[in-house]
């Protein structure tokens, strides 16, 4: 039988539409792979095969009836467990949401379902999307399909591992400080964070509201473009979603990029933490672009060194408030410890939160609570917001000179599980090259770029001005065509 996991989502969608293969066969094929392989990497923390098959049958029926559906109709996908799915448990990788079943679908999920994609399960993640290794899930650690001793990255580690291992052709992740792009880089797949506000956050369980953005992961750039096409657009249920026209993302993928100006972020490329092999990957991409007639320009983001500190104030501040609702009263986990007689309510809440949240989440809640407190607000939160504006200004200055910027996605390839778990600052520094796009609200994409000498994936990152996803995808696609990477699935068996 054809190895469907080696085909792009776009190709699978084409075959399903042409009825060369049914959605049910495709779905069953991937469900079988999940059955065989998921236990080794724990990419998915929930699998709903029966529902997936029902949905795929429905797509097949509609195609049979001659209905014209979206190009990805019938293609299986995995949804990060931070997006609300009606009637299906949504845990955010946290014990505190154990047992919570949302009564509604996130707007993104609604859109994917109405485009005919077939969700096969929920992908594992760092608790509440806080982390860069998917070790912070209450339900288990996700492993890198390329090396089971390594992390897949995070927080969308399950999403990236699912695509890399061929368990699903498409994954939907979320990116607050790099949580789509970093695991995509570490797992050797494409992963994109669109412009802030491009995709509705309604139904995305908030970590840091001003930074969170949904993004797709897949093997190929055209898969990313097609998925973005489905997800993008204004949603009146999200006041921060952008009421701007949605361009056609697939139309200009193969437009020539000769004459384009691409900037190389010197602060990123010359950073002391950058692994030489990652740097070499960026330089390879640079050469490919030059071969296509692109003018390479050095650009500077002088406030780069402040981006991680600013991010680790703003995100925890918002998180400390966003996560206040999980206190055992209304839904999810409630501690069964006996409450204190003199303050039963408070102790119930304290116990529920103490037992329900993991260490990293607690660390960030405490950090954010502290930074927002009277007397500290100006010194921390307010100052971080000023830094955020400076970083956005850095990008604007860079984009005065160039159309797109190029750099690494992460300082190193995948690191070992457990390696940084006890050193949060080292873990946070993995976000160095990705948080800028979140702070500035810009789109970015991570592309595979070969492998290091141990066989671990390497990656590069492209970033573009706000709402210029068309240009970003165009350059990414041309790099793909020029051979920056080949579609690969990690062989687990």
């Amino acid at each position, binding site marked *: 039988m054809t190895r469907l996991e080696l085909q792009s989502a776009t190709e699978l969608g084409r075959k399903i539409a042409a009825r060369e293969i049914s959605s049910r066969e495709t779905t069953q094929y991937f469900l079988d792979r999940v059955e065989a392989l998921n236990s080794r990497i724990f990419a998915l923390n929930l699998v709903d095969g029966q529902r997936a098959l029902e949905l795929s049958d429905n797509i097949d029926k509609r195609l049979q009836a001659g209905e014209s559906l979206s190009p990805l109709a019938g293609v299986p996908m995995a949804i990060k467990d931070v*997006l*609300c799915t009606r009637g299906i448990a949504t845990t955010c990788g946290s014990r505190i949401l154990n047992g919570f079943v949302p009564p509604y679908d996130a707007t993104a999920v609604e859109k994917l379902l109405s485009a005919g994609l077939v969700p096969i399960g929920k992908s594992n993640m760092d608790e509440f999307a806080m982390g860069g290794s998917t070790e912070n899930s209450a339900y288990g650690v996700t492993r890198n399909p390329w090396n089971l001793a390594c992390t897949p990255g995070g927080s969308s580690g399950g999403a990236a591992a699912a695509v890399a291992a061929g368990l699903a052709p498409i994954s939907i992740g979320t990116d607050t400080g790099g949580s789509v792009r970093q695991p995509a880089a570490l797992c050797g797949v494409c992963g994109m964070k669109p412009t802030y506000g491009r995709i509705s*956050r309604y139904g995305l369980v*908030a970590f840091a509201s001003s930074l969170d953005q949904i993004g797709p992961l897949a093997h190929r750039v055209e898969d990313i473009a097609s998925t973005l096409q489905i997800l993008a657009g204004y949603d009146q249920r999200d006041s921060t979603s952008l009421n701007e026209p949605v361009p056609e993302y697939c139309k200009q993928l193969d437009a020539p990029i000769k004459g384009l100006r691409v900037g190389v972020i010197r602060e990123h490329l010359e950073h002391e933490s950058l692994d030489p092999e990652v740097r070499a990957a960026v330089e390879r991409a640079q050469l490919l672009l030059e071969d296509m007639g692109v003018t390479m320009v050095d650009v500077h983001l002088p406030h780069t060194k402040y981006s991680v500190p600013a991010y680790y104030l703003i995100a925890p501040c918002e998180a*400390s408030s966003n*996560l206040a609702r999980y206190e055992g*009263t209304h839904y999810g986990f409630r501690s069964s410890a006996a409450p204190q007689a003199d303050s039963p309510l408070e102790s119930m809440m304290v116990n529920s939160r103490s037992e329900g949240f993991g260490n990293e989440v607690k660390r960030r809640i405490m950090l954010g609570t502290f930074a*927002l407190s*009277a007397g500290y607000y100006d010194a921390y939160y307010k100052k971080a917001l000023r830094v955020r504006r400076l970083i956005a200004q850095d990008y604007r200055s860079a984009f005065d000179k160039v159309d797109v910027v190029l750099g690494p996605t992460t300082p190193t390839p995948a690191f070992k599980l457990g390696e940084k778990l006890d050193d949060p600052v080292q873990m946070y520094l993995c976000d160095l090259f990705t948080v800028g796009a979140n702070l500035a609200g810009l789109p970015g994409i991570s592309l595979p770029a070969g492998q290091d000498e141990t066989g671990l994936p390497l990656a590069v990152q492209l970033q573009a001005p706000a709402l210029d996803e068309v240009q970003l995808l165009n350059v990414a696609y041309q790099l793909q065509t020029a051979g920056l990477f080949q579609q690969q699935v990690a062989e687990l068996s």
Partner: protein
Amino acid sequence: MSVPYQVVIGLEVHVQLSTQSKLFCGCPTVFGAESNTQVCPVCLGLPGALPVMNQRAIELAIQTGLALNCEIASVTKWDRKNYFYPDLPKGYQISQFDQPICGEGHLDFPDPENEGESLRVRLIRAHLEEDAGKSMHDEAAGKADSRIDLNRTGTPLLEIVSYPDLRSAVAAKAYLTELRLLLTYLGVSDCNMQEGSLRVDANVNLHIEHNGKTIATPIVEIKNLNSFRAVERALEYESKRQFSQWQQTGAVMGDSPKQTRGWDDAAGVTLPQREKEESADYRYFPDPDLIPLQITDAQLQRAQSAVGETPLMVRRRLQRDHELKAYDADVIASQGRAMVSYFDEALTKGASAKRLSSWMQQDVMRTLNENNWTITEFPIAANKLASLLVAIDDGQLDNSRGKNVFQYFLDRPASDLEEAIKSLGIASVDQAELEQLCRELLAENPKIVAQVKEGNVKGLGALIGPAKKRNPNIDPNLVRTICQQLIDTEF
């Protein structure tokens, strides 16, 4: 001043705005629905749900701000007020911290102790926020159940905060009365205190003259004030309590943090509420789920034209244009916008303001009270009442026959003046006929004639009853005049 201190009062008033739906979602705001039926993922604070601002609440807040002479912000924003409570499902309340929609303003209101004079309360701000839910504690013995109703969660509130400009409990009540009247004129709130549409917290302390210095007692915030009467009583009680407390302890402002006390209406006392262990730090910060709001000139103009006439303007107009006394103008204005409209319509149909004012305050309001009607339910239309009053002015009938017509109108809502006059046998009495009647009465009552001749004209009053018996249509004043003339000339 009979007491050796000055009471200083500031009020925080929470007003529920009359929007169809909640502040950040589409759920209805109707009071009294079954618990937890008017809820959705947004107001339940479910993971992933996001708030979307209700434009109508903004309009109502701007109208209120304009009527309260407030500066309206050109840019306003939403902030999160973080605290844990089970009836606050998100763990924070969406409110406004440093850029409220309405800035400084003031409200003038009738001075309850000096008729015709007014007092002014300056306002610090008025800001929008979402309401919390309701906790219901079952405190019956052996039970520890608490229940939470989230129907109210997310209902739009406007919090109107005054400067400590009030100097007495009655003044505080008068300010609240005027504020409520204004808000009902505007139609921005039903101001129903029983249903929680209007809630008052009072901050109070004393300024005591002592050894040539002014001493301030610690500020106390009084909660659980369920009526304006309760506000007045609580403030009176609390003033006395603070004075005797000061006499006992000498504690002054700054010695202790602001205390919160609850009003026990049945016992007539304020009682300390459980103190929070640490002073509250709400960790306000801008809500990243909502964008700052620009208020345009067009919005301001629309709101201004929706404000219309305020109670103060009505009082002034009635005094200036219709020569009503301050008291009478106030009574009419205080009955609410609908009563004023009724009054105005009767005026345009020719009723004289003074007679109308007197009839409104007596017959109309008495009838409304007896039947528990509002003016909109009153069966006599303004033009019909006006036709009656015009007829009285014209001498077509006297005041007492007028009351018969009024009753006839009440009994037969479809009737008109012509029918009533006919049916009640009201006819103007011929002068010769009336003279003859008076002559007969005087002849039958020589004692009264003698009294009048001695200069006691009051005795004539005793003839009115018998005169009415013979002819119900006689005008009592005319009877008096004719009798006097007859006594002077014929007896």
